């Protein structure tokens, strides 16, 4: 698989604040990548750098093999739907859907129309007057129907209800299966998208802390629970991401567990459990290692 995005040693500073700190990673072609992290972790800045909306302080970014900065050959393959995407004043959804095909050669008008029905979006209402969720639906529809070879969704569904979010996930997967492309999805609703993601990049304080395929990430981490003393004894010397205690019981989260680890745990009478992607990421991005 070739890489659509290649980022190396990328740093972006705003004054004294380092938004992205020496990031290196690649995003494979035709994959769905989750860009996860806390508020202010640098997710949006990272996507803005890749789409040339911001300029890097240092490091290199290659998209489709060359720099994206002022590069029409690269940028015309990109669609970037922002969190709280803004639209020109007085625009109605019909204006958005009329103009979007001018920018996206792969635009599918039928697909867009079907999505408008799915999201029950009023086409002729001024976007200024629409609810938060309806505005988000406009962005989601553009992002999907544009079929841009590289699509970024930055927390695209602010205000969308659970049904609408599920529609988004379903349509995204269906359409992705028929028209493979590279999708980068930044979100806080990690559990909801966990099954969608093929690759996971976690950014915390501007640094890339996880860059792994989702399958191995989901499979690797385990919780070990039982009497506190036994858990502590087991966790000592192993890579524990955090430990929670309730009364005399404790649950430790381990980044990975070998067959020997599993056997040892069983021998100590400890119980092994799965860790959801969300739990894992909370463990990885909570400062002080989450020893509570």
């Amino acid at each position, binding site marked *: 698989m070739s890489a659509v995005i290649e980022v190396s040693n990328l740093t972006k500073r705003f004054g004294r604040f380092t938004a992205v700190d020496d990031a290196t990673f690649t995003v494979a072609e*035709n994959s769905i990548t989750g860009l996860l992290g806390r508020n202010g972790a640098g997710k949006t800045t990272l996507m803005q750098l890749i789409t040339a909306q911001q300029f890097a302080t240092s490091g290199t970014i290659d998209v489709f093999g060359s720099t994206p900065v002022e590069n029409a050959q690269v940028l015309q393959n990109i669609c970037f739907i922002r969190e709280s*995407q*803004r639209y*020109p004043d*007085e625009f109605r959804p019909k204006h958005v859907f009329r103009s979007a095909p001018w920018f996206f050669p792969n635009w599918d008008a039928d697909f867009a129309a079907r999505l408008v029905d799915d999201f029950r979006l009023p086409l002729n209402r001024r976007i200024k007057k629409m609810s938060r969720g309806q505005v988000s639906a406009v962005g989601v529809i553009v992002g999907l129907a544009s079929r841009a070879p590289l699509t970024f969704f930055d927390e695209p569904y602010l205000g969308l209800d659970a049904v609408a979010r599920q529609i988004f996930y379903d349509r995204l997967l269906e359409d992705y299966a028929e028209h493979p492309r590279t999708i980068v999805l930044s979100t806080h609703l990690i559990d909801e998208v966990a099954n969608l993601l093929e690759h996971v990049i976690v950014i915390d304080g501007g640094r890339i802390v996880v860059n792994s395929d989702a399958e191995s990430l989901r499979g690797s981490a385990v919780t070990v629970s039982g009497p506190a003393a036994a858990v502590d004894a087991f966790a000592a010397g192993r890579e524990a991401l955090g430990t929670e205690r309730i009364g005399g019981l404790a649950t430790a989260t381990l980044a990975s567990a070998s067959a020997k680890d599993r056997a040892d745990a069983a021998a100590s009478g400890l119980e092994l459990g799965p860790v959801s992607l969300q739990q894992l990421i909370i463990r990885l991005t909570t400062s002080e290692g989450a020893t509570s």
Partner: protein
Amino acid sequence: MTTISTPHASNRAIAVTRLHVVNTWSVFALPAIIMGVILVANIAIWALIFANTPAADQGDVREGLQYSGAASYIFVYMAIVAIQSTAVTFPYALGFGVTRRAYAAGSALAYLGLAVVYTIALTVLGFIEELTHGWGFGGRMFTAIYFGGDSWYVRSFVYFAFLLFFFFAGAMFGAVYVRWRATGIVGAFAVIILALIGLAAILGLLVGWEPVFGALDDLSDIGTVSLLFIPTAIAAAVSFLVLRRATIRN
């Protein structure tokens, strides 16, 4: 690797041009309606004036009506169109994978096209005003003395020069806002005021006002109005340079 589509770069600029006018309501319908309301209000006022003026004095009234600035609202409206469309369309278009270069080129084309369209509209209204002898009351709105009075081509040229100036001045402030927000606008005004004072100082102290006014006097109406293309060109160049390194704020 996916075969990436490579439409001609100019298509992207044209797409930006079309994006500026896709919402026909705010670019064409609303200004036309406002202009219509102003015209009707003016006609009503002219009717009132003439109804209350003795026949002997009506010639003097017609003389006075040629000093009308009623139609000039359109220039301010277009400056605001340019400011707003830059402030919002720029981040919007960049999200759709447009380069800053294509955005600037497409926007300039949009402003040029809109200036031509509105010049034609104002020229036609000027003809109607002449044919109807001032909308039936000897009123002057589109043939006001500021627009060059009785010569239609001078009027058209004046409309065009002013429309273009206001579009690009608006685009420049829009670009400054996109890049530096409110601080930038304040700074831009400071720079412009200092530049004007500097220019006045150079002309007044070094050249002297008399030759300056003499030179202006020698110019025809069209020649004088043509001077407006200088600040227009500066504004266009500044807005391009400002957008070249503009980023999208969060």
